[in-house]
């Protein structure tokens, strides 16, 4: 499964980066969403994927039955998802505001600040 996921994740990175190279700020946002998901899936894939073995322990037991999936990777992804959401919320509103201020969905009209 990791092979398929590796290819898919690579594709997601490509899709995200492609979107971020567009002029439209709305597309930039979509690129950010994809990128953050892609990174989470990368961690998931890199840590190894296990079917049907959630790291949950039955009451009264000390260990989960059999081999369990990597809970640490899951915790990391969970953290990354929430952080990603926070950052995305900020970015989305920022773009919203920038659009209001600049009045165009075109990143090319936001280049005067630099020089």
């Amino acid at each position, binding site marked *: 499964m990791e092979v398929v996921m590796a290819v898919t994740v*690579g594709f997601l990175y490509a899709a995200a980066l492609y979107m971020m190279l567009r002029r439209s700020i709305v597309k930039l946002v979509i690129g950010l969403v994809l990128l953050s998901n892609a990174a989470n899936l990368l961690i998931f894939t890199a840590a190894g994927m296990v079917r049907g073995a959630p790291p949950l322990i039955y009451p009264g037991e000390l260990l989960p039955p059999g081999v369990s999936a990597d809970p640490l990777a899951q915790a*990391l992804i969970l953290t990354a998802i929430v952080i990603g959401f926070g950052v995305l919320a900020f970015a989305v509103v920022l773009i919203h505001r920038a659009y209001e201020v600049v009045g165009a969905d075109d990143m090319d009209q936001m280049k005067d600040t630099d*020089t």
Partner: protein
Amino acid sequence: MLYAILSTFLLAALAPWVHRLTGRYSGWVLALLPASLFVYFLSFLPEVAAGGTVVLGPSAGGWAPAWLDAALGRMLWMPGLEIQLSFLVDGLSLLFALLISGIGFFIVSYAGRYLEKSRDLGRFYVVILAFMGSMLGLVLADNLIAMFIFWELTSVTSYLLIGYNHEDAKARKAALQGLIVTVAGGLALLAGIVMLALASGSYELSEILNSGDAVREHALYLPLLLLILLGAFTKSAQVPFHFWLPNAMAAPTPVSAYLHSATMVKAGVYLLARLNPSLGGTEVWFTLLALFGAVTMFVGVFLSFRSTGIKSVLAYSTVMALGTLTMLIGIGTDTALLAAMAFLLAHSLYKGALFLVAGILDHKAGAKDFLQTGGLRAALPVTSAFAILAALSMAGVLPLFGFVAKELMLESVLGAPGLVPLLALLAIASAILGVGVAAIVGIRPWFGPRVETPKTPHEAPPALIAGPAVLASLGLVFGLGTGLAEDGILAAAAQAVNGGVPVDAYLALWHGLNWPLAISVLALVGGLFLYSRWDRVREQLAWVDTASRYGPERGYDKMMDGIVGVSDWQTRVLQSGYLRFYIMFVIVSTALMVGVTAQIFGVSVGPLAIADLRLYEMAIVAIMALSALYAILTRSRLGAVAALGSFGFTVALVFVLFSALDVGITQILVETLTVILLVLVLFRLPGFLGLSPWWVKLRDATIALAAGGMVTLLILSTHSAREFDSIARELIEWSVPEGYGRNVVNVILVDFRTLDTLGEIFVLALAAVGVYAMIRFRAEDRR
């Protein structure tokens, strides 16, 4: 010694208050410090004159309490880097110290009067005293880095002095030019001295001077020599770096007098003399110094002769003197070294005097140009007398000290170890022109028909005359009593330059009838002849103006423009303002770095396990990928959002099917909230625009796919290279007994890795505050 140096800086810091307290006498009051320093330095004279060398460690104070010595010694500066305030007092450094403090006395007292009406006088004192302290530090330091520190301090303080009239754009430009040129050289010097220390194994001059052979044989000798020369040449205005010096005349006259007579510009000469035992004596040393020195000498005096501005004439003649000194040090024979020291002294005296006279002409007659002057002898009797005396020394007329020095110089040139014809030719030409320049200075303002000066001329007060008087007179005193100077300090100085070996040469007013004397006579006659046709010669030399437009100064200007031009261009190219180019830069760089590295190190993918594929999982993953694809291809904004929703659900499904339940739940919730957020925001955002032509899209897609491919490669190779068990094993084992929780992921989040979670909720909170601020600011602005 430490306290001597520090006291100047301390007084500099206090100068504005002293100025406020003492009012119009502030010049005299503050001049007490250089005077007492002069006396203090004199106290070293007996030992030094006897050929002795005094090395003072960083904590060697003397009269101060021992704890203070120790504390200051520790503080200044950085033992870990072998930077310390140690001092070396020998003939050379003492000669300079005496000149700096001695002339400094006159400068400070003179300035108190000269700038009496300036409201910046208080600040001027600060800088001039700091400059004096720096100069003293520079010539007395034993530690190379300490010397360099003072070296750069002189650059900075002189920058402030040159830019004294800072509301004048010309002054600012000249100050900047001087600073850039000298600091540029200084940086070369820094590299040079670090290499010198590396070659000699020490940062202490007293040791470096004894390891000359090691240095000369070191592989780094040539580069370090070139770097140090670059430092010295820029500071001492050798061709082709001479252009900054005349521009520096924008400074008030006392500053010019100080900078050009004994201090700033001579620092380079000092450095050459100082390092002569260590670096000198080689073919390349001789060739470079003698050539650059001789050419500078000639160019200086030539330009001097064709100038008419009073300070300009004097400034270019300083360039000549600096060239002469460099040449002499390069020649390096005993005679030459003694000549160098004698010429140094003579020049300091007459040039200091003449600059101060120039100040008087400006101050009391309003004249800034020789063409504005003439026949002023009657109006300024005392001034003119000493001016003429100084000019005579400059011309090298018997029995003034200038004559002694010039004779010895000519003798050295004739006895040089090579290049004699060329050097002699330049020396003779310079001597002739030099007399001409001296004539301009010594005759033009004072004799001949009276020319109306901008202001009605008045004789100067004692504070202004004291300097020229004493300095010019000393030229006569030392000329008549050559032994006074020689035994007092010059022999010791030459000995120091000669690496501690006494020089086999002596000073005399009368060396007998010899070639140098003949040349002197020729020079006098020729010089006076040239002076008599000064106006016509200047006319014929008008082409020089055109030529100098293509000179080194133009090079400097071009370079500065070039830097700004390159900067402009670079900013346009790199900092273009287009976010997508920035992103592209980052992606391409990353892909290249990763790709090339993977290629170089032969990173490969291990055997791929594709046996466990399941159809429904493939379908889910495919829909995931297709959702992403649709999100990027659709022209419908909310279609893209809906696609993100479907993407999110399939991602959640992957998480859930592969055992990440908490993650799956979070993904679903976050995805839902993201969709809500986007829907709320898109309400006001415009539709997608098809802004890019097909080839741009193709290019971007290629870049993106290359980067994505790199990611795939990395995941696969990481997957096949894994060698260790995850620490998760322990976390699972500890979850129930230690963490009291059966959901291992949650136990990790709230217990094993609390800090992550803590940070994460703070991220969320910060984002919320940020959003709040953005929206509220907007709302308030609308109101």
